[in-house]
């Protein structure tokens, strides 16, 4: 039961961390709970569908379906995260000033949040589907273990969610006026990590050249499969044996998003006056 819990925990952890960063990053945005909840529900439904059709997906593109699917999912998430951080750089200041929603930003807030809902859905879908396949496999091979498996699965999910909650409240301890800066930085790293993982899937499908199979090997220092390795894998895209193209993609994503954020964050003539930042916040 404990080994089941541990495996499910490792699968759920990634999704839980993504959700908690997004919750912290959208603190104070109108109706974020609604969108994030939809993301989670959509992700769970999606995970079950992916698990049911796993064999069909696997058979796509002469057997490279799993890799292509995962890569597609990663790129969608990276794009949505990029969009969000650009949007936040424009509206984050307004929200830091007033915390509750500025009227005119409500409609565009909804649009930006739908992007975040997609990221949440995608993270839950990918990790959740592996957990479902794993649990289903146990149930299929040994029906007597179903009860143990269920308990182990629930324990794993609960621990993963607990880690997410811990990260969320940890982030909230960051002073409000810095919160968006911190979470926006985390989201950009998340996006870069996901883009480079997406590229790694395309390399393993043999659709892209690796440009150097193993640029470095830091597995002696930190294994990617360890809990800490997994967390860093999610949070900053840590890879113990990255290929050249992965590192290139990572850096390119960082640079492109940062440049776009800078560009859109530059105060334009229409911006609100921002004199009282920080005074009436906490």
């Amino acid at each position, binding site marked *: 039961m404990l080994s089941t819990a541990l495996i499910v925990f490792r699968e759920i952890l990634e999704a839980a961390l993504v959700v908690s960063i997004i919750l912290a990053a959208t603190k104070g945005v109108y109706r974020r709970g609604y969108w994030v909840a939809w993301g989670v529900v959509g992700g769970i439904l999606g995970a079950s569908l992916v698990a049911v059709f796993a064999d069909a997906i696997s058979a796509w*593109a*002469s057997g490279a379906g799993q890799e292509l699917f995962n890569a597609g999912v990663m790129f969608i998430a990276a794009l949505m995260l990029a969009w969000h951080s650009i949007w936040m750089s424009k509206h984050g200041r307004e929200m830091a000033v007033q915390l509750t929603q500025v009227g005119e930003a409500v409609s565009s807030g909804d649009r930006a949040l739908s992007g975040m809902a997609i990221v949440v859905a995608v993270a839950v879908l990918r990790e959740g589907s592996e957990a479902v396949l794993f649990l289903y*496999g*146990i149930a299929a091979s040994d029906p007597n273990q179903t009860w143990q498996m269920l308990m182990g699965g629930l324990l794993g999910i609960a621990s993963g969610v607990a880690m997410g909650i811990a990260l969320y409240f940890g982030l909230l301890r960051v002073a409000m006026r810095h919160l968006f800066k911190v979470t926006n930085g985390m989201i950009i790293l998340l996006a870069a990590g996901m883009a480079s993982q997406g590229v790694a899937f395309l390399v393993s499908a*043999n659709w892209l050249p690796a440009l150097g199979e*193993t640029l470095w090997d830091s597995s002696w220092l930190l294994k990617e499969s360890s809990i800490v390795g997994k967390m860093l894998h999610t949070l900053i895209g840590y890879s113990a044996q990255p290929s050249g193209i992965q590192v290139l993609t990572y850096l390119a994503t960082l640079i492109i998003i940062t440049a776009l954020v800078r560009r859109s964050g530059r105060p334009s003539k229409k911006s609100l006056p921002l004199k009282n930042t920080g005074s009436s916040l906490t």
Partner: protein
Amino acid sequence: MQLRISSLVKTVSAAAALAFISMAQPALAADAEVSLVIKDHLFTPNPLEIPADTKVKVTLENRDQTTAEFMSDDFKGGKLVTGGKTVSFFIGPLKAGTYEFHDEYKESISKARLIVK
């Protein structure tokens, strides 16, 4: 401004997508192929031997009912295979040496060796 940025983002992402499509050549042929079977959570053959500095296509057949995931702490690559199914994936090119791999879901009992030479 917002409009300009979102169109900029769209342009950049479209360009990136195009770059991907043009770079992506389905199946740059692998230089070697091996097959691997997992049964009772054990891999055969063990050790698995592959040539050094070569991209190798691995065909993995899962003869158990449980889901398995080929995984290594020493090199990249690997894949999930549901019960009773066969998948293939690529590993390498790897330098000569001995590497470990395992089924992520049964790590302790499924440890196997990969010999690259």
